[in-house]
């Protein structure tokens, strides 16, 4: 390499603080999915929203890239990290974890669900803080009392756990059943909501 080439490389412009694009992108209608990650008492969470509302809440286990790729495939590849656009759901979650909020008010975008799954999750979203229901009850609510196994699958694919409180669904005998974030998290959520585990749902 000649001396001038060496100089060009060595003295090339250094990286500057980069201008933030998210507001301009949103104003131009080009921000289809905004996301942010933050630490919670249940581990790192990823929140994603569309202009319609919150579309995804994921428990991260080192799989942020996969979660984002899935959103790119299912919704749109126009995805940007835009933490300020997730301030509202984040504030509600903070309040929920502090025990000062019992109902979520952020608008939800149900686009990642459909059919029976959506009906099961919508029924689940109506179960109030501190209450529980059985798989069979939500299956009935969703229009098919016999499909409680399918209801279990629907809950397992819940794209917005915590806020759509699938942790409040238990087995008829009082057993915990399953949970998308692992049973330990289900126990913590139910415990924080005052569920003792001994009473019948």
């Amino acid at each position, binding site marked *: 390499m*000649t001396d*001038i*080439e060496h*100089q*060009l*490389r060595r*003295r*090339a*412009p*250094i*990286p*500057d603080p*980069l*201008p933030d*694009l998210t507001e*301009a*992108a949103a104003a*131009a209608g*080009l*921000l289809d999915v905004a*996301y942010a990650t933050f630490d919670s008492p249940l581990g790192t969470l990823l929140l994603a929203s569309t202009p319609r509302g919150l579309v995804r809440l994921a428990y991260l286990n080192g799989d942020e*890239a996969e979660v*984002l*790729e899935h*959103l*790119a*495939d299912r919704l*749109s*590849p*126009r*995805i*940007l*990290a835009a933490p300020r656009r997730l301030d509202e759901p984040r504030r509600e979650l903070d309040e929920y974890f502090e025990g000062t909020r019992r109902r979520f008010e952020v608008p939800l975008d149900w686009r990642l669900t459909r059919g029976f799954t959506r009906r099961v999750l919508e029924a689940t979203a109506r179960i109030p803080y501190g209450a529980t229901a059985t798989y069979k009850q939500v299956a009935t609510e969703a229009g098919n009392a016999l499909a409680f196994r399918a209801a279990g699958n629907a809950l397992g694919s819940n794209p917005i756990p915590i806020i759509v409180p699938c942790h409040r669904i238990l087995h008829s005998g009082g057993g915990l059943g399953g949970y998308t974030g692992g049973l330990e998290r289900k126990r913590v959520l139910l415990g924080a909501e005052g569920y003792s585990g001994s009473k019948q749902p």
Partner: protein
Amino acid sequence: MRLPPFQTLLEAHGPDVHRFLVASVGRVDADDCYQETWMAALRAYPKLRDASNLKSWIFTVAHRKVIDHVRARRRVAVPVGDVPETLATNAPPTPDDDLWANVRELPDKQRTAVALRYVADAGYEEIAAVMGTSQEAARRNVHEAIKRLRTEYQP
């Protein structure tokens, strides 16, 4: 067509695109060009047919913004019919490296080729793809620029 989340593109190439723009249009105008580049990219992204070389693609978009910017600047400052081949005197004074200030005064194609090669670390194939030329032309542009800088640049 499977496209990666746009954020991964921004994280992978954002810093180099910005440096390329600083090298091409100067620090003062780089931020505007940067925003225009990424907005244009975001607009076109979902319709992109080939995701095999996203680096070339994003630098092609940035290169177009540089051309627009240079044209707009000339329209403001230079009488029609007397268009010089370089940015020359209209470039805003920026406290910048004097060698790279010399680069900014090279003819457009040489300046772009040099910025791609030494800022974005692009190979000749990539430079050719971004600038829409042959590899041979890309090589020649870089070579001519180096030759010129060697004679004109006095540290």
